[in-house]
């Protein structure tokens, strides 16, 4: 899957879980500059992504992601 498609799908997931349809993520987005995204909503986000991408993340794979870009790369890696 292309990186850009992953980003779009992540964006949709965030928009759904954080109940904010106008949300736009970039590769540089981080937890501190996205409204509603905190260590708790993060969990629902991760689990929704797990269902959507059909994979399991381990807690620390998430921790190692510093921004959305890292998350995209991690997902892309796990898909291959």
């Amino acid at each position: 899957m292309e990186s850009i498609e992953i980003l779009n799908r992540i964006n949709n997931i965030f928009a759904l879980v954080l109940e904010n349809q106008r949300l736009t993520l970039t590769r540089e987005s981080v937890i501190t500059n996205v409204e509603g995204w905190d260590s708790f909503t993060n969990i629902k986000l991760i689990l929704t992504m797990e269902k959507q991408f059909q994979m399991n993340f381990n807690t620390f794979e998430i921790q190692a992601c510093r921004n959305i870009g890292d998350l995209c790369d991690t997902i892309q890696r796990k898909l291959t």
Partner: protein
Amino acid sequence: MYFNTTQYILFLPLVVILFYLTPFRFRWFLLLAASYYFYVCWRAEFMVVIIFSTMVNYFSAILIARNKQDKRKKKIFLVIALVINLGMLILLKYLGFINDFFHELFNITPAPTSPLLYLIAPVGISYFTLQSLTYVFDTYYNLREPEKHPGIFALYVAFFPLILSGPIEQSTHLLPQFRDRERAKLKSSNIEEGIKLIIWGYFLKLVVADRTSIYVDSVFSNVDRHGGITFIAAIILYSFQIYSDFAGYSCIAIGSARLMGFDVLHNFNRPYFSQSIREFWTRWHISLSTWLRNYLFSPLSYYFMRKLQKERYLKIIRPELLTYGIATSITFLMCGIWHGANFTFIIWGILHGIYLIVDRAINKKGGNKVVNIIITYILVLFAWIFFRSENVHQSMTIIKAILTHPGSLYIPFDSDVVAPVYAVLGIFIMLLVEVKREFFNSSFSLSGNKNEYIRMASYGLIIFLILYLGVFDASQFMYVKF
């Protein structure tokens, strides 16, 4: 060796000078020797504990890494490490408390007078245990390779600026710094930053914390004689005491490390300006809350979130909220217990847990900034009542007095009357600085000024205030007891 002793003020520069004179290859040895010396100044017997803990974690990490592919074996070594680390902590810190508890409840354990049950917990054990566990977990989760050099690992565990009361560092953040040659070069900016932090730390400790403690201690040692108004004054003063004592200690710790080029995570970010309890825990004892979030809250949340698949529980509770509730309750129960072997700490922890759960359930956003800050502060104050009290009964007496019997403000006589006035003066100066940094950060700065003379004058002014207003007999840092 406490930080606010002449001993430390001589020890630190000596170590820093030797650090830069020592060739990079041998610096770990110098720092380890200095750290062990620092630790032995407390009590030689404690060394056994820290060395044992170091060895256990060193070998656990290596064994975990060696069995990377075998999930079962990996887990076994992790569990062994956890059991030994936490077991030691429980044994040395909580055994007496647990024994008392069971004795009163069931009358089954030996009488509470057996000295074996009241071993003195080695200083810093709560801190270096958690710091070591970040290392073990990080190795388990493949976030880093184990540290093969036993000396460097031992240094990570015992690093003297952090050993007493943190900040609790992350192995992925601190450990690599001991091998970083570039970082270890002498830079005048590091020295200036370090000294700036240390000066501010001493101000918080000697001018604010040590003065406030006198009034607070005298009120709390005589709980039956005071009215609600006195308790409110005392608990407000206590909120500043515990903040300035701990933040002051942390500043000195971080500054000391910075003198040698090490970057240590900040522990406080003006917590009483928080607009919610949620925000409070991103500003108070940041290293601990980070640890709890990474190693307790998040794993618990993932676990329960996966398990709780129903749409609604008890007809109205969504699975996210229930997960949050369970994970938060357990995390803050542990947080309370970590602070000490007393039910008061447990209640304090649980209160904060409840605050967070209610906050999440209501999920109100916005509102007036000042009102939010005041409400959050009041919630925190209420919880501090338990944290400071000797026992639950005392807390209840205080709360009852606040609600039913205001009385009049207690003013101590003779020399003790002076202390709270100095305390208020110190708090006022501290608030001036913190309000400026919080709300007017982009405007003209003294200590962050481009002109080095203005900067130095500001540091000099703080030193003058410390010498003019500070307390100069050795007193403990409060968090050292943990």
